[in-house]
Structures are given as C-alpha cells and as structure tokens.
C-alpha cells in the first residue's frame, strides 16, 4: 500500500511522516497532499489560544478526555516557539496530555513555529489537512502563548477558544485588541484564583460591547469558566464547541470557513512563489542600493515593478 492509501486508512506512521515532509518542505509532502486533499474538509478545526501560562495545554488535555467520552476521534497540533537564533525548540505540550498516549483515537503532534510569526507553525494548515484526511473528527490547534495580535489561528480554525486567566495584572492586558474581537468561545481558566470576578466582569463588558456591532442572528460568544487542572468545565466547553459547529452548519459558515482557509493558503503560496520569481529578476545593483540606503524602499519597489512591466514576456 502506498503512503497516501495508508494515510487515508488512518495509519498513524503514514500521517506522521506526511506531516514531517510538509513541515520540512520536502517535495514528497506536496505530492501526498494532492492525493489526500479530496478526503479533507470534514474535520471540525478548533483553535485554542491565549497568553503564556493560561493553561492552554491542560485545557486541551481536558477537552480531549471530554471529546473521547463523546466518541470523537481527536487530532491535536500543539505549537511551541522555535528559537529565532538557532531554529531549535523544546516542545513540551504533550507532557500535559500524556494520559492519552495509548488511546488509538488520539493523535498528538508537537510543532515548532520555525520562523512563522502569527502564533502557528508554518505547516500548521497542511498538518491539519493531514489529520482531517486521516479521519480525525476534531482537530485541536493549540497556538504558542500569544500576545495581542498573533491571531492566525482564527483564519485556520472553524471555532477559536480564547483562554484567559485571572490575575494577569493590567485588566486582561493579554486578551485585548485582536483576540477579543476574534474568538467564538471565551474560557476563564484557573477560575479558582484571586481576581476571577474582576476578570469575568471585564470580559463580560467587552463581549457585551462586541454584541452591539453584530446583528442578533450572528453567533454570540459564550463566556465559560474552567479549572482545567481538576477537569472542571469540560462538558460546558465541549457543548459550546458543538453548538458553534451546529451554528456554522446551519448558516453555511462551515464550508465558507474551510473555503476561506484554502483561499488564504493559496494566496500565501502565490505570494511566496511570485516574490521568489520577482526577486530572481531583481538587478543586484538595486538590492545593493537599498541596503546601502542610496534609495528608499518605496522607490526601489517602484523601479522593480517598472522593470518587470517593461521586460519582454518570459
């Protein structure tokens, strides 16, 4: 049996190798992706994001248990930062999920960001496609601990869970801006901690204001609480995840989201490919002039475009 067939039959080693090829940029990965693509598009992709130390991994662990009790097969992509200096990484998210190690219905993969900036790894989209095609019904994507605008997961996931914690000092500093506007589900983890009431009131206010600019028919993000280290709050979170999927399916948003994700990845790949071509044709003197600050970057880009427009078609 070839690797694509093994992967589609759900064979773990085949899926694991496919993800490796895709994250390494190995050409065999692209070929494999082409063969399995039609089998993807079924999984519910659930993002889990929030600031460092919010307990994302522990919450994912708890959610896996709950989803397994509901007889869902679960894939997990757990992302940790790669060193921008050495490229190395310590990937420790699966430590908190180790009780699922022998469950054949759970596939956990750790990924380093490898230079990507938005809270995901470069190959996260592709890895999600692989797990989807292998038949995992829910694919959980746990981002790195994020700041205020690393919200690429929102474009990837059908449903994004924002995890907040009490006591981060300056009033939910870490869940402002992009994060608050983006999530479909808010969870205050470590709800037994000091400062819980204050955090809850603040998030309620922000969600209330957010509801003002939406029409009544659109999804209203619930605010839930959890103490993930004790397994508290799992059922309500899983219920809300399911409710959001039902909402997306009823509104046509499920297919829309999957389609937008493909479009976005296509545009990203196109950008890289076109940029590569353009830079191949850029005269070295122009790049040197930019580096030596003899020309400003805007004018240099203009020069480059004029050069391309005037060049004979290849």
């Amino acid at each position, binding site marked *: 049996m070839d690797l694509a067939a093994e992967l589609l039959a759900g064979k*773990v*080693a085949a899926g*694991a*190798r496919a*993800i*490796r090829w895709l994250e*390494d*940029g*190995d*050409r065999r990965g692209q070929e494999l992706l082409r063969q399995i693509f039609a089998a993807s598009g079924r999984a519910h992709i659930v993002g889990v994001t929030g600031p460092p130390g919010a307990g994302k991994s522990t919450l994912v662990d708890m959610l896996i248990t709950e989803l397994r009790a509901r007889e869902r097969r679960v894939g997990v992509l757990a992302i940790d930062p*790669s*060193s921008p200096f*050495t*490229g*190395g*990484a*310590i*990937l*420790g998210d*699966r*430590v*908190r999920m*180790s009780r699922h*190690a*022998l469950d054949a219905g759970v*596939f*956990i*993969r*750790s990924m*380093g960001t*490898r*230079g990507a900036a938005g809270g995901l790894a470069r190959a996260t989209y592709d890895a999600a496609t692989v797990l989807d095609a292998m038949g995992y019904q829910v694919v959980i994507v746990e981002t790195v601990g994020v700041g205020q605008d690393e919200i690429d997961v929102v474009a990837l996931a059908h449903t994004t869970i924002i995890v907040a914690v009490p006591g981060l000092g300056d009033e939910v500093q870490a869940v402002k801006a992009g994060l608050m506007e983006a999530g479909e589900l808010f969870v205050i983890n470590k709800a037994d901690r000091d400062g819980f009431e204050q955090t809850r009131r603040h998030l309620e206010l922000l969600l209330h204001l957010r509801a003002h600019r939406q029409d009544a028919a659109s999804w209203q993000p619930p605010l839930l609480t959890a103490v993930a280290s004790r397994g508290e709050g799992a059922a309500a979170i899983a219920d809300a995840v399911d409710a959001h999927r039902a909402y997306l399916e009823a509104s046509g948003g499920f297919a829309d989201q999957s389609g937008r994700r493909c479009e976005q990845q296509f545009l990203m790949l196109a950008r*890289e490919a076109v*940029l*590569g071509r353009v*830079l191949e044709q850029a005269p070295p003197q122009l790049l040197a002039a930019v580096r030596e600050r003899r020309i400003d970057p805007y004018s240099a880009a203009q020069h480059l475009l004029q050069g391309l427009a005037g060049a004979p078609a290849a």
Partner: protein
Amino acid sequence: MAPPAARPLRVLLAKLGMDTHTVGITVVAHALREAGMEVIFTGLKQSAEAVASAAIQEDVDVVGISSLSAGHTRSLPRLARLLREQGGGDKLLVAGGVIPQEDLPLLEQAGFARVFTMGTDTRDIVAYLQQWWRERLAAEAPPS
C-alpha cells in the same frame, strides 16, 4: 520572504517507569535546542508503549532515553522492540544516565546505537547526533 526549507533534527527525550530524576534530561534538552534541534518531551512515568507511540506520532529521527534508576535492562529493549513493530525501526536509539558498563552489550544488541554514561559532555552528545544526521541526510538524498 520565505527562508529555505530547513530540516531540523527531531529528538524525543523520555524517561521510562518510575524514574523521576530530571536534571540530566533537562540539561541535554537545552543543549540540543541550542544546537538547532527540535526536542520533544513526553513527561514522566511513561511506559515503553507510550514512548513508542509518541515517537511514531511525532515522527522523530532520534529517541533518547534517560535512565537513572535501573530497570533499563528490561524497559529499553522493550521500547526498541515496540518501535520496530510499529514501523519506527529507522529511528536512532540512544540512552544516557546511570548505566553500568556490563549492561552496554545488552543494550547495543537491543538496538541502542550509543549509551552516554555519567559525566558525558553535552557537546559530545550534540556532535554525535549531528554526525549521524549528516550521514542520514547524505544517504537519503533524493535522486533529483
């Protein structure tokens, strides 16, 4: 601008059974990270089955077991066998920690390529893995 596709070495570091001495494995993990490798931790008190399963899911190149409380003559060969059975026979197996000289032949026979005994310099571990990876990549070089 996309950087050229890199292939960092992926290494799973684990401890088997009730061994909870984590100083050595942590030092090694940081040394490997500094050398540009991706290091995956599985957590403590793992069975050989759980470590084998994680190694397959993570598709690592190297599995490194730290052992400081005996039991290695049973658990390490068991892990090696499980990995072979699950299609992970191509992974490099190494071990380190408190392992007596007289146990080395047994571990070697079980499939462990190298055992780093107490007092090993982390630079030697890094150099050994990098050398192995260079040879593996050269052997695997696609025909294109």
